[in-house]
C-alpha cells in the first residue's frame, strides 16, 4: 500500500520503514503533547485575569486618541490619565498624555507631561510628534541615544 506524507517545509519524502506501518490509535496523543497543551491553557487562564483591565485601558486609549484628533486636548489628557491609572507603564498612554498636555497649552500642566515621559526612550516618529507641541525650554532635557 502506498503511504502519503503530510509534511511541513518538505523537500524530500522520507522512506518508510516496514516496522512503522502499524496504525496509530485515533485521537491518542503522547503525554508530553497533553502536558504542553495543559501548560498553555494554564497560561491563557492566568492571562485572562488581566483582561478586563487591559480591555478597559485599550478602549480608553482609543477614546483619548479620538478626542485628541478632534482637538479636545484637555479631554484627551483626562482619558490618557485614566489609561495610566489602569496600566501605569503604557508607553503609548504616556506619550499621548504628554502630547495632549502640551497641546492644551496650560503651562501649569507642562511638568506633568515631562514627568510622564521620564525614563522612556522615544522613537523618531514619537519625538517628531512631541517636539511639535513641546515648549522649547523642555526639549533640552532630551538627548539622542545610540540605536
Amino acid at each position, binding site marked *: *500500500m*502506498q*503511504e*502519503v*506524507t*503530510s*509534511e*511541513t*517545509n*518538505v*523537500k*524530500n*519524502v*522520507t522512506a*518508510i520503514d516496514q516496522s*512503522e*506501518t*502499524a*496504525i*496509530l490509535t*485515533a*485521537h491518542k*496523543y*503522547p503525554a508530553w*503533547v497533553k502536558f*504542553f497543551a495543559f501548560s*498553555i491553557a494554564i*497560561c*491563557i487562564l*492566568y*492571562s*485572562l485575569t*488581566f*483582561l478586563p483591565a*487591559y*480591555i478597559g*485601558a*485599550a*478602549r480608553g*486609549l*482609543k477614546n483619548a486618541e479620538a478626542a485628541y484628533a478632534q482637538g479636545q486636548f484637555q479631554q484627551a489628557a483626562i482619558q490618557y490619565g485614566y*489609561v495610566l491609572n489602569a*496600566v501605569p*507603564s*503604557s*508607553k*503609548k*498612554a504616556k506619550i499621548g498624555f504628554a502630547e495632549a498636555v502640551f497641546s492644551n497649552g496650560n503651562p501649569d500642566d507642562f511638568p506633568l507631561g515631562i514627568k510622564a515621559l521620564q525614563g*522612556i526612550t522615544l522613537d523618531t516618529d514619537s519625538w517628531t510628534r512631541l517636539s511639535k507641541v513641546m515648549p522649547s525650554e523642555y526639549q533640552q532635557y532630551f538627548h539622542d541615544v545610540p540605536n
Partner: protein
Amino acid sequence: MFFIPGWLISLATFPGVIVHEIAHRFFADLADVPVYKICYFRVGNPAGYVIHQPAKTLRQSFLISIGPLIVNTILCALITFTAVFPIIYLDEQSYGGVFLLLAWVGYSIGMHAFPSNEDMNNFLATVKNTKERGLLLLAAKVSALLLQLANALRFFWFDLIYAYAVSMILPWFILHF
C-alpha cells in the same frame, strides 16, 4: 529583506510545527484515515510529518490538507488574544513573562497555519484523480491555488504577517463593537 534558513525558523517556532502536525493527525482521525506514523518535530527537513493511508475521497484529502489552516489559525487567535493588549495595543514597558510566552507560542502557531507545498501536492494528486464534481471540487482547486501562493509568499514573511493579522482580529472586534 533578510534571509533566515527554514530550519532555523522552524526551530525558533517549533510549537507551530507541533500544532501543524497535530492538526493533520486530528483531521485524519476525523476523516477516518488511518495514521501510521507522526513526527511532531525534529531539527531537519521536513521539521515534522504525518504518514497516513491515502485518502479515499476528496473530502478526506481536503480535510487533512487544510487541517492546519483551521486549527493553527483558531489557536493563534485565541492564544495571542490576551498578549496583544499589553504588547501591541498599550505598548507596556514591562509586562509579565507569561504574555511573552503566549505571544511566542501564538505567533509560532500562526506562522505554521499554511499547509506546506507537499501537503498541497498530495491534495492536488487527489484532485486530479477524483471523480467528484461540483462545489467541493471548485473550492478545493481554489484553496489549493491560494495556499500555494501563500507558501510562495513565505519568502516575504507572509506567514508572520498572516499570524499578526490573525492575532489582531479578536481585539479589534472587542474594541470596535
